Structure formats: C-alpha cells, structure tokens
C-alpha cells in the first residue's frame, strides 16, 4: 500500500522497491520521512501554487507501525545499541557547536557556557544532541516529525529538573514553526537530517528565516560519493549493521559543494566545512581533512533580507522539476556537477 504512495510522490523511488528494503526499520524510516515530505509538499502548495501537486494522502499511521515506532523509540538512549554511532558523534558535534558559538560572545559563564542562547534542534529524534546542549546552559527547542521520538525525548528529560526547564520538545516539522519563530534563534542545528529531506532548498530557507541575524546554522550529513555508497550504504547498512537497513538513500545524500552553493545563495555564509570519520572498531568519530564520507558545516546568517521572491517564483517550477529529474536519474546529477 505504501508502495503506490511512493511512486506518486517521488518517482525516483522505483530503484528502492527491492524486497530487502522493506524490513520493519525501513518501513518506519520511510514512513516518518514521508510525513516530512507530506508537510513539505503542502508547504510547496501554499507558496508556489502553480507547481504540480502530487497527491499526498494524509498520514494515517498504521497501528502495526506504532509498535515499530515504540520498539525503536526505546532504542534511542541505549548507548551501546542501534544508535551508538550517534551517541559517540556527540564527542565531535557538541564541541563543534559549542566552540563556534562561544566565538560569538565575549564572556561566558563557567559551567554554563551556552547560557542565554536559544537553539533549535531540527530532527532531534530522541534528544541525543538536544540534551548536551541543554546541559551547557542553552534554551533548546527540539522538533521532530515523529511523535514517538518526541515522546521518548520528553520522557528521558523528565527525570532531570535542569533539562526540564531548558529544553522544550514539539512534534512538528520545521515549516510549521517558521511563522511563529521567525528570527528568534541564535543557532539552528540540523544534524543527520538533510539527507532525509526532500526539498533541501526550502529547508535551508526555513532555517534562514528562523535564525537571528548573525546566527549560526550547524549541519552534519553524509557526502554523495562512490565511497559513501560503498561504505555508508553497502557496508554500514547491509553488511555490518552499523546503521539500520533502509535508513539512508544514496540519492538524497548532499555533497559539500552543493550544500555550500545552496547556503550561499540563501544568505548563509559558510565558515567551516570539516570531514568526520567513524571508526567502527573503536566506536569513535574523528575529525578529518577528507569530506567524502561524513562532514559537518557551519554557516552564519549574513544577509538581512531574503533573496527576492519574484525571481524565486519564476525559477521555482524549473528548479522543482530539476530536482525531480535529478532524483529520477542519479547519474544525471553527477554529470551536471561535472
């Protein structure tokens, strides 16, 4: 049943209809990101009414799938479990965020270096990155389209009175809160999210809108290279089981060059791009010169106004189709890049 919805929404997914993909994990992951896509499609409808509408059926989450959500939702906080690589990634991403934010302030309170900062964690999942940021003193809002993830995150922070005060979770997508939170955040964190988003351009624009002037955007994601296919998909998902099967789709990976161009064209000036490498034997991440697998980026909002809207309108239809065409044929995008 979900089959047909995919083929309507994203024509590219035909390569994905291999039987092995539809294990329980992939059902859950595809479902949760289908919700995101549905929201994004709706948003597209409002802003660009002349773009083609792909029938989006409302999300009626299957009761059988609730169990899958719950089963996996509990796994977020097992440091040696399925999400262990994300836990150990905190050793890189928290200092990355913290140090770059500390550069923007003259003094900071010892013990609470990020106090006074408002941070948005998009796609927070179970709150793995949200909690350390809260412990460092920031006021954090964590959002995730999957209800169960938010429930797990709420439950986990409920035991710690300090975190209860500093962190707020909401089950929604970024577009839904753009209006009410325009220009309110000192930092937006989108860690391991953009490789699951269908419309990166819009996503970045929303990030731009919610950031204060001079605010920072932190992104960590996977590069789109042959190496990332071999190691990130084939090895990690299918062979070694480091990442649950079906979590990622290679077509949706974003190269640093593409990300940089989207960021720059949307008023965010890129300060840092750094490669990250995971050692599956030790379980630790390391910074690296090499960005061909995972990488982190830091960009700062540096243009006061949005890029002129009419220009965007004229080209959007084409860019949307361009994106769609890209997703049909991944090879094309590579050629386009060259």
């Amino acid at each position, binding site marked *: 049943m979900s089959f047909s919805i995919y083929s309507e929404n994203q024509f590219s997914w035909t390569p994905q209809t291999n039987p092995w993909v539809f294990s329980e994990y992939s059902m859950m992951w595809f479902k949760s990101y289908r919700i995101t896509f549905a929201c994004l499609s709706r948003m597209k409808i409002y802003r660009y009414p002349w773009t083609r509408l792909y029938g989006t059926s409302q999300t009626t989450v299957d009761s059988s799938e609730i169990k899958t959500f719950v089963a996996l939702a*509990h796994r977020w906080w097992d*440091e040696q479990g399925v999400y262990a690589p994300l836990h150990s990634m905190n050793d890189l991403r*928290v200092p990355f965020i913290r140090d770059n934010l500390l550069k923007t302030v003259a003094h900071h309170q010892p*013990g609470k270096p990020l106090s006074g900062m408002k941070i948005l964690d998009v796609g927070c999942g179970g709150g793995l990155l949200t909690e350390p940021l809260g412990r*460092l003193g920031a006021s954090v809002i964590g959002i995730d389209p999957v209800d*169960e993830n938010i429930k*797990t995150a709420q*439950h986990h922070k409920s035991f710690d009175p300090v975190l209860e005060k500093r962190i707020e979770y909401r089950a929604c997508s970024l577009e839904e809160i753009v209006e009410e939170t325009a220009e309110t955040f000192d930092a937006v964190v989108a860690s391991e999210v953009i490789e699951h988003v269908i419309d990166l351009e819009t996503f970045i624009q929303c990030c731009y809108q919610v950031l204060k002037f001079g605010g920072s955007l932190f992104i960590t994601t996977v590069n789109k290279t042959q190496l990332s296919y071999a190691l990130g998909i084939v090895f990690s998902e299918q062979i070694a089981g480091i990442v649950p099967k079906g979590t990622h789709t290679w077509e949706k990976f974003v190269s640093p060059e593409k990300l940089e161009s989207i960021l720059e064209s949307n008023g965010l000036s890129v300060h840092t791009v750094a490669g990250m490498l995971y050692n599956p034997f030790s379980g630790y991440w390391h910074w690296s010169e090499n960005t061909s697998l995972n990488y982190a980026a830091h960009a700062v909002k540096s243009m006061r106004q949005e890029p002129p809207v009419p220009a965007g309108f004229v080209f959007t239809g084409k860019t949307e189709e361009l994106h769609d065409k890209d997703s049909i044929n991944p090879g094309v995008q590579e050629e386009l890049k060259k």
Partner: protein
Amino acid sequence: AAPAAAGRGPLLSCRRWSGAKADTLYDVVVSGGGLVGTAMACALGHDIHFSDKKILLLEAGPKKVWEKLPETYSNRVSSISPGSATLLSSFGAWDHICNMRYRAFRRMQVWDACSEALIMFDKDNLDDMGYIVENDVIMRALTKQLEAVSDRVTVLYRSRAVGYTWPYPFTMADSSPWVHITLGDGSTLQTKLLIGADGHNSGVRQAAGIQNVSWSYDQSAVVATLHLSEATENNVAWQRFLPSGPIALLPLSDTLSSLVWSTSHEHAAELVGMDEEKFVDTVNSAFWSDANHTDLIDAAGSLLQSAVAFLKPTKVSARQMPPSVARVDAKSRVLFPLGLGHAAEYVRPRLALIGDAAHRVHPLAGQGVNMGFGDVSSLVRHLSAAAFNGKDLGSMSHLTGYETDRQRHNTALLAATDLLKRLYSTRAAPLVLLRTWGLQATNAVSPLKEQIIAFAS
C-alpha cells in the same frame, strides 16, 4: 513490557520509591570523607566546568575541629609524591600544607638486611623526591579548601549510606535513571554519579557486587614518632628489608622521624607492648645490626659490586647509616593489619571507585595514598571534559576511560609491590642471592632508577 512511554507523562514517582519527587538530585555524590574522598570532592568543587553542579560528600565520622596545629606530631604520616603535590596545589590545598608543616626529602636509601646490597634513589637536579606530611595536616588543608567552595559542595558528617539502589538499564522506561542512596537516618537522595571512596572494606563496592581480589598479609604495621639522638639535616628516607618485613624511617623535622615497621602480627604486638627503652634499642639494632649477613651472600655481593665498579668507575654507593634513635613519643605506637586488594572493575554505569576502595597496597613502597590521588587526578580530568561537552556524568563512555587509565598503572604497581614483599620475606639463600644481585644491578643502571622514580611520582 507495556509501552509505557506512549501513554503516561513524565514519571516522577514510581511504585518502588515513594517520595522520589522530594529527593534532592545531586550531580555527584562522593561516599567516604577520607584523604582521597575529600580530595575528590575538593577537586570537583574547584573545577571550572563544575561551576553549576551540585556535589555532596558523605562522611560517617564527625567533623574534626582544629583550633591550631598541635605541637606533637601525629603518628600517621604519608609520603606524598610530586604528582600528588601537583594535584593538591591545583585546588590550593598545598599552600595550606606549606603553611602548616611538611618535610621534603631528596634521597631514599633502600637496603637489605641479609646482604650489603643497597639502592640509592636521588634526583640529580635539586628537585624534591617526595614530601612527608602528617595525614591530619593533609585533611585540615583539604577541609579548608572544601569550605571555600561550600556553595557547590555540601558535606554531610555523621552520615553513613546504608542502602543503594542502582538504575535499571535504559529499556525499563518506568524506572528512575539515577542512583538512589538511603542514609542511616532514613533520608534518601539521588545522584547522577556515585563515587565510592570508602576504604578497603568499601560498602559501595560490595553493594554493587563488584568482585574484589584480596588477601591479608601475615603482617601488621607498627607506626611511631621517634626522637633522633642528634639534630641532622634529616632529608633522607630510609628503608631496610628485614626478613620479618621492611622497617622505614621517614623524616619529619630536624629531630623527629616517623617509623613504619611492617612485621609479623606477634612481633608487632610485642613491639607496641614493650617498654620505651627496649623499643628504641630494637629499632636501632634493626637498622644497624648485620646479624643476618651470611658469608656466601657477602662474597657474591662483593663480586658483583667489583664488577660494577670496574664498568662504572665513577659511581660509588657506599652504604650510609640512618640516624640513631634516642626516644619514642609516648602513646605514639599503634599497629594496624596489612593486606592487598584490587577491585575487578573500577566503574559501573553511574558508579566509580577511587582510592582504597579500588586498590589496597602494602606500605613498603609508600604508594597507597599516591595511587588514590592519581585516581582523583584522572577521574577529575575525565569528568571535567565530560561536563564541558554536556555529557551525562554517569555515562560509561568516559568512566571506562578513567578505568583503563588507572587500572593499567595500579595493577602494575600492585603486582610489583606484592612481588617485592614476597621476595624480601625470606632468608632462603637462592632468593637472597637473586635479590642481592638484582638490587645491585638496578642501582648501577641510572636510567632504570629514573624510570622507577618517574613511575612512582
């Protein structure tokens, strides 16, 4: 298990712990207010990344009130290595010690009673090898620094923990993730990390079910404060290995030294019971008498010695004699039993062991409290980095870093000390020969001695 997370709101009180809502939640609780436990609480309290954290120190005994430094020296002293001194100065306790009293020593002579072999440790540069400080002085300095951070560190005296409840692994959604501690007066508290510093009979370690390898030595240590016959520079630490056990003389002042004599239980009881004159004579003859020498060993020893002198003509270590003792302080003779202990695991989720709770060692190398202070240094370093990264303090990821760090060092030292104790507890000729030659050879190889000093610092 029912998917509890789906239906209910945040869990504040659970059927297991009623009143959990009212419990204070601490970031770190240190159980045991001895030298190592107090140093831990102090170091965390002064750490910059712990500025907004709540720390609690639980001590079973009463608070010691000091008006001023007593004139008589205490009989319990510790040899503080330079590394430990660095730790103590990192949070300002060393300055207090300097203002009270301590004795630096520059040289250490260790020799055998059964032969002429000896080893002399000294630093070529004018650095101190170590410091002899009374335990009471160290405690006083630590307590003063603890009071300086009383906004972050709370100390509960006369509080003994009687029960611990450990957190379930993450999958039990309904249960509190913290460690719950019940005190003797019935009150309870919760903590994100429990540090066990409660000595070699650690209640924390037993409650956690951590395996402990331990055995008692057939020895007790006798300590006393001795008055020397004449005032000397007194900056040398002396230790002689008698067949019954090592006897050590540690400098306290120009006229005073501290005695630590490990010997059999019967002999120890005898020493503590005998009258003062006889005791003084026994101590002097223990250091000076050559009654245990045998011709065979003497001949073998001088053979190697001439070989060494031939190869390294410049270095000559003649055996020096320690100062002679005139009297002993009244009521300063005390004995306590000795043993070895080592915990199989130093850490569990939300639990870390430091000091004697993790390892117990023979005093012959003067390393006991230094190993404990080394544990404090390492754990504070790991916890500070974790706090600056916003990590959950009880997370195993950095606790295992501390465990690996310290187990490597402590296991080696424990094994070496035990080996030395056994090697020197015998009169059997082959072993005496082995250790004589071994000691002489080690004495001749300066880089090796430097390594030993570095390891024990």
